C-alpha cells in the first residue's frame, strides 16, 4: 500500500472533498492500485533528462492591459447559487 488512510483523509480535507463510507473504501483501494501501476514508470532511468515544459518552443504570450468596460457583471454573477445586491453570498466565515 502506497497511501495510508491518514494521508488519504488529509488530502481529501485539503482539496475539500467529502465521501460516503462506501465510496471512501472503494476509492482508497482503487487509488492504491492506480499508484502501484503508476509507480512502474520509475523503472525508467531519467537522470539525464530535464522535465518537460511546453509542447513546442514558444515565447510567453502577453496582451495589452486594457480595461474592458463591457457590462457583463450581471451575466457573470447570474449563475451563482446565492447572490445579494451584486455580491456572492456565503456562510459567515469570520467570527
Amino acid at each position, binding site marked *: 500500500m502506497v497511501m495510508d488512510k491518514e494521508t488519504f483523509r488529509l*488530502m481529501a480535507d485539503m482539496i*475539500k*472533498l467529502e*465521501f460516503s463510507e462506501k465510496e471512501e473504501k472503494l476509492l482508497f483501494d482503487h*487509488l492504491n492500485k*492506480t499508484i502501484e501501476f*503508476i509507480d*512502474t514508470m520509475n523503472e525508467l532511468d531519467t537522470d539525464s533528462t530535464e522535465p518537460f515544459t511546453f509542447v513546442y518552443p514558444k515565447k510567453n504570450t502577453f496582451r495589452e492591459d486594457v480595461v474592458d468596460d463591457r457590462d457583463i457583471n450581471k451575466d457573470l454573477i447570474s*449563475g451563482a447559487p446565492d447572490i445579494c445586491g451584486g455580491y456572492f453570498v456565503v456562510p459567515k*466565515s469570520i467570527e
Partner: protein
Amino acid sequence: MQEITSMSALQLAQKIKSREISVQEVVKAQLETVYKREPVYNSYITVMEKEALDQAEEVQKRIDSGELDCSPLAGVTIAIKDNICTKGTRTTCASKILENYVPPYDATVIEKLKKAGVVLIGKTNMDEFAMGDSTKTSYFGASKNPWDIKCTPGGSSGGSAAAVAAEEAHVSLGSDTGGSIRQPASYCGLVGIKPTYGTVSRYGLIAFASSLDQIGPICRNVPDCAALLEAISGHDPKDSTSAGQKSYDYRQALLDDIKGMKIGVPKVYFEEKMQEDIRKIFLDAVNTFKDLGARIELFGFDAVKYSVQTYHVIACAEACSNLARYDGVKYGFRADNYANLEDLYKKTRGEGFGYEVKRRIMLGAFVLSKDNFEKYYNKARKIRRIICEAYENAFERYDIILCPETLETAPLLADIDITEPKKSSSLTLNSSVNLAGLPAASIPCGLDKNGMPVGIQLIGKRFGEKDIIRAAYSFERTRSYERPEII
C-alpha cells in the same frame, strides 16, 4: 433523393447553395430524427430546438444574400460536446455540479461555427468532465452505440460520435485529452481528428487537463472532417497556447495520392494484448497503404511504453488544479445543508462530483503533494520529454505513423465497471499523442467478426494535419462507407 439526415455535410451544403433544399427543411428533418432516435441512443444532454430553428432562418437569409458563398458547411447541422460553452444554452460537462450552468459567452469555436453558418442542433453526452472512455461516468446516463445498442459508443466524446453515426447530426465536435475523439470515432465507424495542440482555440472549452486538451471534429468521412477542422482552426488571442499558422486550408490536402509517402509502424504496439481480428484488419490496412504507393517500415518505439502512467500523472495533476474552481459559490451546484463555509465546499464538491472525477482529483493531489512531487509529477514530466523527443526522431524518417486505434472494438456497456481499476485500452494507443501535442486521426478500416467497426490511427508531425488528411483520404477512397442499421 437520399435522406437529408444521411447526406454528407459537404454534399448537403452544396444542395442548400443550389436551392434544392432550404436550411429550414434541413433543421426540421434533423430535429425530427433526433426526437425519434434519442430515446434509444441518448446522444444528447440538451437539444437546442428553438435556437436551431432561429439560426436556420438567419442562415438561410445569409445564404440568399451571398454572404456565405465561401462557407462550405453553411446550413448543415452540428452537435457540440457539452464541455464547450454555448452562450444562453446550458453547458453541463455531464456533471451534477454544472447541471444548470448557462454560460454568458460562446467558446471561440462556437463563434467561428456561427459565423460559418453551421447550425447548432444540441449539446452531446460525454463522460463527466471528459474523464472516462465510455460515457458511463455521465450524470445523465450512458449513450448507446448505433452499431449495437448494448455497446458503448466510446468516450469521452461518446455522445458526439453516437449522434453522427445515428444521423442525429451531420457532424460534431468533441474534445481529446487522451483519445476522447479518436476512440469514439473508431467505436462508431467514423472519422475523428485530434488536431495539433494549439491549432484550435481552447477558449470556452471547460478545462480538464489544459496541456493535453484539444477540440476536434467527428464526421462520417474525411472531406467533411477537413472542412470542419478548417472552420474551427486559427490563432486566438484569447487562448495563450494558441499557435498561428500560415494556412488552414485543409481541404487542399484532399488528394488521392500517397505515392512515396514514408509511413512508420511502431512494433511496440504489436506486443499489446489485442483483439485478433483487429490485428488482422490492421495488417490488411497497412497493405492497402503499401498498394497505394506508400513506403512502410516497422520501427522500435519503446519510449511510449510508459505513456499511460505518464498520462495519468499529468492529466490528474492538471485536473486537480482546474477543478478547484467548483466551490458552490460563483456558479453551478451548491449543497443544501452545510454548517459553515468549509462544510459548504466539501458537501458541494462531495455531492456534485461523481466517483471518477473525485478519484482523479485525489490522484492529482497525491502526485502534487510535497513528498511525492519529485517521484511522480516531475518523473512524469521527464518521461513526457522522452516521448516528445522519440516522436521528433521518428518524424525525421517518416511522414506519418500508423497504428491500430484501439486494442478492442466497442465493449458491452454491461461489462464496463468504472470502479474497477484497469489499464484502459484506448489510452495505450492514444495518450502519447496528446503528451507530445501531435495531430492524429482515426478512420474506419473494417468490421470485426461481430460486425463492430475497427479504426486505424494516423499520427502526424506537429502541424502535419495535411499529411494525415491526405493519407486518410487516399485510404478512405479504397473502402465504401459502412453505416449501422439505425433503429
